[in-house]
């Protein structure tokens, strides 16, 4: 047994969006019933998968690049404390202010306080997972501040009073007809010539409507809030990569810029950044290079925001770092390649995961950030097919972490309960039988008797009691044979 230090706090409950209100299988069942959702997801993920495969395939040293990415992340996390202090010193030198937030509640309080101090009643936002994670928009709304999402897909989600279902493509569960409906309903004034009824589902028409809607907000906003894809510790530089340019509007036009960043996002040097700027666009949007890369260091007098705040967010990350196996999840650069190749995600979509981090990476990250008991069904939301590991640009062994977290969950349940669960009893009994050949042979002979249930037919009846019914509801089970292989072999060859 490795020693586990239990003192590190996980992300608190009651704030932010890391916990679902239902276990994954129940939420997935509803999603699976939605034929439109499955069609939208199937089409979208197949398209992104093909684009990614093409641009990754053309890089001859992709595997070396991938290992370099993993190596940089591993080395950075090993000395995270030193790199964070260096980042703080460099940002401060260049006129920025650094705030340390232990959890979602602290981060929300810091940002809300900063916005209020400017007197602004609204902010524009760059697409950011960290601020989704902590539920910043809700915290701002409670303080009377309106947050406008400016990423096109986030805008669709926000206007539709929906929640994101994908890390990179938050509205992936919507098709263009559905998006047209949302726009026509919520911003008819920007629908183009004539009234909203004229708005078609042509992507260009939809984009132009959003552009007109957003342009107003960019020009009027005094405060912007962003996340960060990377921070370079040696110079105190922050980086946001994006496709639309709306992020750059937010990063350059307002007077005040507040950036919320998870503490694992930094890289020590510019040389390290080079690796990730190659890995990220090919893995995420399937592009050789993303259209916009915005970099800024503190405050530049007379140019861009004159006040810059960096909020460094823990919210359970230090607890993840303490787990020798699970810490690899902190390598994640939020590219979402694992979502796009995951056969489970493709069927259920992101909402079923209950957290802002869906898909395979969410299934290993969310339970670690919250403590595995608060997301106990997520480590099981995978067939362990391994497609995520192959696609991951920083080689996170997601299947192994899933298996590890299942072990953590089972052991936590065993510690907390006075009586073992029926499942634990079954696995204990099975272990005992499977470790004693004589018991195992007897159990196989008993199982062989199950063939009488089939009454001479090749398959067992479909109406079996649980848990077998979970299988036989949709799949036949063959009638067991009279003799196991080892029995037959021993008969023929002697013991």
């Amino acid at each position, binding site marked *: *047994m490795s020693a586990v230090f239990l003192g590190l706090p996980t992300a608190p409950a009651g704030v932010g969006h890391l916990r679902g209100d239902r276990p994954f*299988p129940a939420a*997935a*069942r509803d999603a*699976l019933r939605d034929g439109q959702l*499955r069609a939208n997801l199937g089409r979208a993920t197949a398209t992104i998968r093909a684009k990614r495969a093409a641009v990754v395939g053309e890089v001859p040293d992709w595997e070396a690049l991938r290992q370099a990415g993993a190596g940089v992340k591993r080395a950075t996390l090993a000395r995270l404390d030193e790199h964070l202090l260096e980042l703080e010193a460099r940002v401060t030198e260049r006129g920025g202010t650094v705030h340390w937030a232990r959890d979602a509640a602290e981060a929300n309080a810091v940002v809300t306080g900063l916005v209020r101090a400017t007197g602004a009643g609204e902010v524009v936002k760059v697409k950011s997972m960290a601020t989704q994670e902590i539920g910043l928009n809700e915290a701002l709304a409670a303080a009377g501040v309106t947050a406008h999402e400016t990423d096109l897909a986030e805008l669709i989600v926000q206007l539709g009073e929906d929640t994101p279902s994908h890390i990179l493509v938050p509205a992936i569960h919507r098709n263009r007809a559905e998006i047209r409906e949302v726009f026509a309903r919520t911003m008819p004034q920007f629908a183009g010539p004539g009234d909203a009824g004229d708005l078609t589902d042509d992507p260009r028409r939809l984009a132009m409507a959003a552009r007109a809607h957003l342009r107003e907000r960019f020009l009027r906003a005094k405060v912007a809030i962003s996340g960060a894809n990377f921070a370079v510790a040696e110079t105190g530089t922050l980086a946001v990569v994006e496709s639309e340019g709306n992020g750059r509007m937010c990063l350059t036009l307002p007077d005040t810029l507040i950036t919320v960043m998870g503490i694992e996002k930094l890289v020590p040097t510019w040389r390290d950044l080079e690796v990730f700027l190659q890995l990220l666009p090919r893995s995420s949007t399937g592009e050789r290079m993303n259209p916009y890369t915005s970099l800024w260091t503190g405050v530049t007098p007379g140019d861009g925001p004159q006040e810059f705040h960096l909020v460094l967010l823990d919210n359970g990350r230090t607890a993840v770092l303490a787990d020798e196996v699970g810490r690899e999840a902190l390598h994640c650069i939020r590219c979402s390649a694992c979502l796009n190749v995951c*056969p*489970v995600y493709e069927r*259920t979509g992101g909402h079923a995961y209950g957290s802002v981090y869906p898909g395979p990476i969410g299934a290993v990250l969310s339970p670690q950030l919250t403590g595995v008991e608060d997301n106990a069904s997520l480590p*099981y939301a*995978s*067939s*362990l*097919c*391994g*497609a995520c590991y192959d696609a991951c640009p920083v080689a996170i062994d997601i299947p192994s972490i899933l*298996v590890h977290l*299942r*072990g*953590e*969950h*089972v*052991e936590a349940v065993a510690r907390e309960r006075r009586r073992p669960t029926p499942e634990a009893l079954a*696995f*204990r009994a*099975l*272990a*005992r*039988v*499977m*470790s*004693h*050949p004589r018991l*195992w042979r007897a159990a*196989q002979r008993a199982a062989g008797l199950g063939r*009488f249930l*089939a009454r*001479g037919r*090749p*398959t067992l009846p*479909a109406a079996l009691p649980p*848990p077998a019914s*979970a*299988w036989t509801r*949709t*799949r*036949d*089970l*063959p*009638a*067991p*044979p*009279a*003799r*196991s*292989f*080892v029995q*037959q072999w*021993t008969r023929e*060859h002697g013991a």
Partner: protein
Amino acid sequence: MRVALFATCLVDTVVPQVAMATARLLERLGHEVVVPPGQACCGQVHVNTGYRREAVPVVANHVRAFAGARRAGVEAVVAPSGSCVASIRHQQAAVLRRAGEHGLAAEAEALAGRTYELSQFLVDVLGVTDVGACYPHRVTYHPTCHSLRLLRVGDRPLRLLRAVRGLELVELPRAEQCCGFGGTFAVKNADTSTAMLTDKMADVLSTRAEVCTAGDASCLLHIGGGLSRLRSGTRTVHLAEILASTGDTVSPGQGTAPAVPA
């Protein structure tokens, strides 16, 4: 070569004809097959469901059963399963080490180095692709996830199938998509598993193959269980059964008929 056969718990108990076919095939190729009677399970189902402590005696039993065979002059262990071999190669030693069983862990590592999935053993160790089989049927091949991504068997099964006389091999669309089995996943997340299976079955049926084959009995039990429920007429047959066929015996097809009449 003296070869030990690890049937795997599932094949041994549910589809013994797959292990029998593996043994017949290896014997036909001129090798001596031994079946260590103490074998039961590799422990994967325990580990992957989270019962890593309970897995320890199961893994220990496996290592002891086959370590004995090794002492008796066995040069390789062969199993008709990519998934179980992957567990032996990538999980067993770690499970034992975590429990402080360092001596046994070292033995498990040595054993893992000599344990092969059937197609890897045939192509890489024996150096054969034409095993002298005859199977006059239209067949499609599903590459199971663990043989594909954990063992990297690549096109070895396809090379073996292409050399089978009479066999018409048809390509499976979206072949690398998981069938939705995933061990206890099939029960714990039955709805999602079934959604994945539905798409896999549609792809299998689109090939108009008579037979869907693979290197893992577990995945075939899943796909075959679905196809049987649909009364589709397409059946699942393990790769070992096809390679063992010489044309004079008709395989009943896994999942649709008992191996040994009751």
